[in-house]
């Protein structure tokens, strides 16, 4: 076995939430308010539904091949060389996605807090820490996450209570002003984000009890969807759709609005904490998936030698992919959703499931 770790059901739910929420919390409201305006929260609910279906799909597919990851059973379904080609695509996707995430991480810290610091310095630090965690294996960053995620969710809840005086729920009216089309358009990006739950297909062999996978994926998706929808509602209630769509990081501006009794204010440090801690876990998950996938693709006995080279690629890509934060946002808002959704999150898994069923590969889904 390449990865000797085993994680329990609760650990897995936590990990899957941390894999999506920290970055989504910060970015999604801007894009959904731009497209769906005050109905953005409906977009999030739609996206949650879509993500539940995707989770169902990925887990069903994976459970047909007990003990095998996405990178292994693809070969079993499609045959050796076609399988290897598809797996290579997934490895590329994990590296590319992670490079985007590292860039988002760096962009946020530099734009909002440390404008004079070179972005590569911040990205280097986070990548180095992630590399260390990934070398130590799945169980290590899963346990870190068991400490981190409750803190993140706790601070989000506290923030929600503290900003209530600024909120005006009437901003959410009128509902469905522009009909269903903008709402569906607005759902694409969050669906792609939450659809990262497809990573369950890599994680399932390392669950202590694989039969709980359906429940784990559904629980993680619902928790993520709930927090995203609440954030969306709050941002619209505070700023209205026009201003929310204008901010780069609506959640940051939301926290900056907190001022209670002329005393409790300037709490962005909490936001920074959420971002750094949660972002680290998120980067670790995809980093680990990429390393594991590459090792399985190359049929190595260990993925550890691949961690540092992958880190170098990650860092280099994150710097070269985009010239500016505006380019990054344009890419995420316009292209990332369709690109990730149609190919990696829904397209290939559907195809794999169809082929597996047709060729009678794998056991019946659990």
């Amino acid at each position, binding site marked *: 076995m390449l990865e000797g770790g085993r994680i329990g059901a609760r650990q897995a739910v936590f990990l899957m939430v941390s894999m999506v929420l920290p970055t989504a919390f910060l970015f999604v409201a801007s894009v959904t308010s731009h497209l769906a305006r005050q109905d953005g929260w409906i977009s999030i609910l739609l996206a949650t539904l879509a993500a539940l279906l995707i989770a169902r799909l990925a887990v069903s597919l994976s459970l047909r091949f007990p003990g095998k990851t996405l990178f292994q059973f693809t070969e079993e379904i499609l045959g050796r060389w076609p399988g290897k080609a598809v797996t290579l695509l997934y490895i590329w996707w994990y590296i590319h996605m992670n490079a985007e995430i590292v860039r988002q991480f760096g962009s946020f810290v530099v734009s909002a*807090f*440390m*404008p004079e610091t070179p972005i590569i310095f911040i990205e280097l630090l986070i990548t180095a820490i992630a590399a260390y965690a990934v070398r130590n294996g799945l169980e290590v960053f899963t346990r870190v996450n068991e400490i981190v995620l409750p803190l993140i969710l706790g601070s989000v809840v506290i923030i929600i209570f503290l900003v209530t005086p600024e909120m005006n729920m009437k901003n959410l*009216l*009128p509902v469905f002003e522009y009909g269903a089309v903008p709402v569906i358009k607005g759902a694409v990006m969050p669906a792609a984000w939450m659809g990262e739950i497809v990573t369950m297909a890599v994680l399932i062999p390392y669950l202590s009890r694989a039969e709980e996978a359906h429940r784990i994926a559904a629980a993680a998706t619902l928790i993520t969807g709930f927090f995203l929808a609440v954030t969306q509602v709050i941002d619209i209630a505070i*700023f*209205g759709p026009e*201003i929310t769509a204008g901010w780069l990081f609506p959640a940051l501006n939301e926290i900056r609005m907190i001022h209670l009794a002329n005393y409790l204010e300037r709490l962005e440090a909490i936001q920074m904490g959420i971002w750094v801690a949660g972002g680290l876990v998120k980067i670790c998950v995809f980093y680990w998936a990429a390393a594991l996938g590459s090792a399985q693709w190359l049929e190595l006995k260990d993925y550890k030698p691949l961690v540092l080279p992958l880190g170098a690629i990650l860092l280099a890509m994150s710097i070269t992919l985009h010239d500016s934060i505006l380019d990054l946002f344009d890419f995420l808002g316009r292209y990332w959703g369709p690109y990730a959704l149609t190919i990696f999150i829904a397209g290939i898994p559907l195809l794999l499931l169809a082929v597996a069923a047709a060729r009678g590969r794998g056991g019946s889904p659990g």
Partner: protein
Amino acid sequence: MKKVLAFLALLVIGAGIMSGCWSRKELNELAIVLGVGVDRTPDDQVQLTLQLARPSAFVGGGEARGREPATWVVSETGKTVLDAQRKLALRISRNIYWSHCVIAVVGEDAARSGIRRYISFFAQAPQPRETMWFLVARGKAGDILESRSILEKTSAQDIGFLARARTGYSVNFKDFLVMLATKGSNPIAARVEIIGRGVVPGAPAMEKSVEEEGPALTGTAVFRGETLAGWLDESETRGLLWLRGEVLKGIISIPSPAEPGKEMSIDIIRGRTIVKPRYDGESVWFDVEIIVEGDLLEQQSKDELPEREALEAIERAMAGEVEKKARLALEKAQAEFGADLFDFGVAFHRKYPKKWKEIKDRWNELFAGAEVRFSVEAHLRRSGLIAKRLTPRE
């Protein structure tokens, strides 16, 4: 041995990384901006005025330091706000730091020529905060920042406290941005000007008493789109507050129903405004329902309070006074500015989203012609500590 080497390597690397952050901001290297003023110069440039804190004046509270001015006001012109700031940086020995800015004031000329270009920096740059108070100066914004405060350390804090007391209509920067970005809403902000505020008595036999001038919030600046359309005075601002349904503090003064020529004053405890947009396929009108509750705290007359008839007469007079103020503001908005200052368009948008699409671009004209029907309900809840008048019966 290997472990020791690894540990040493970690120490060396750590020493390099942890000796300080890249973007550190040390307090003694910062010039903290307390208030900022933006004006338009006659040749269409931006004049930036900063009120900076002098940290030494904030240390301790000793009498000896009492005379040391707490602020330093600097001003410079440039093509943009940042351009002017860059020029200022040439003569300010510390880094200009915006995060603690309490107020942002825009001068009258700048506001009249379209405010957007003067305020974009404050929304876009990460340092200035959305919670700072946003005001429009009658005259030049720079003059406001050059003023002094008697009660507070700086005039910026003074104005901040005035705005926070919400006796008039004060908005923070976020509120202003939202109003500016929303169709069916015209931005408004508190008006600030320098007026004679009081007298500072001199020390005995040493100095004369000095007339003191200082900043005061004297009404509301009214925009049509992004340009300043005019002002509402204090009395009209009361009406504006009623129509926008903002939390109110203040006094309603009414003539005594029993004794003409004498007045009574009621302290407002709470008020509520419900605006119902109406549309019957042709015309647009609004039903405005105002509920006001107050305590009677002063009476020059001799009305018998416990009598129900007297109470009802007072309540009717209260309602009449509130409606009068509201109509005053409404008339000015409709006839003089032709601008919807009360977010009626936003309410209409929420109730009739389909119709809104057709009319949103000519909303201000429609608003100017719209009928508004008032129904005001007033309640006198308490009468201070007195149940009966204190004057003797005849």
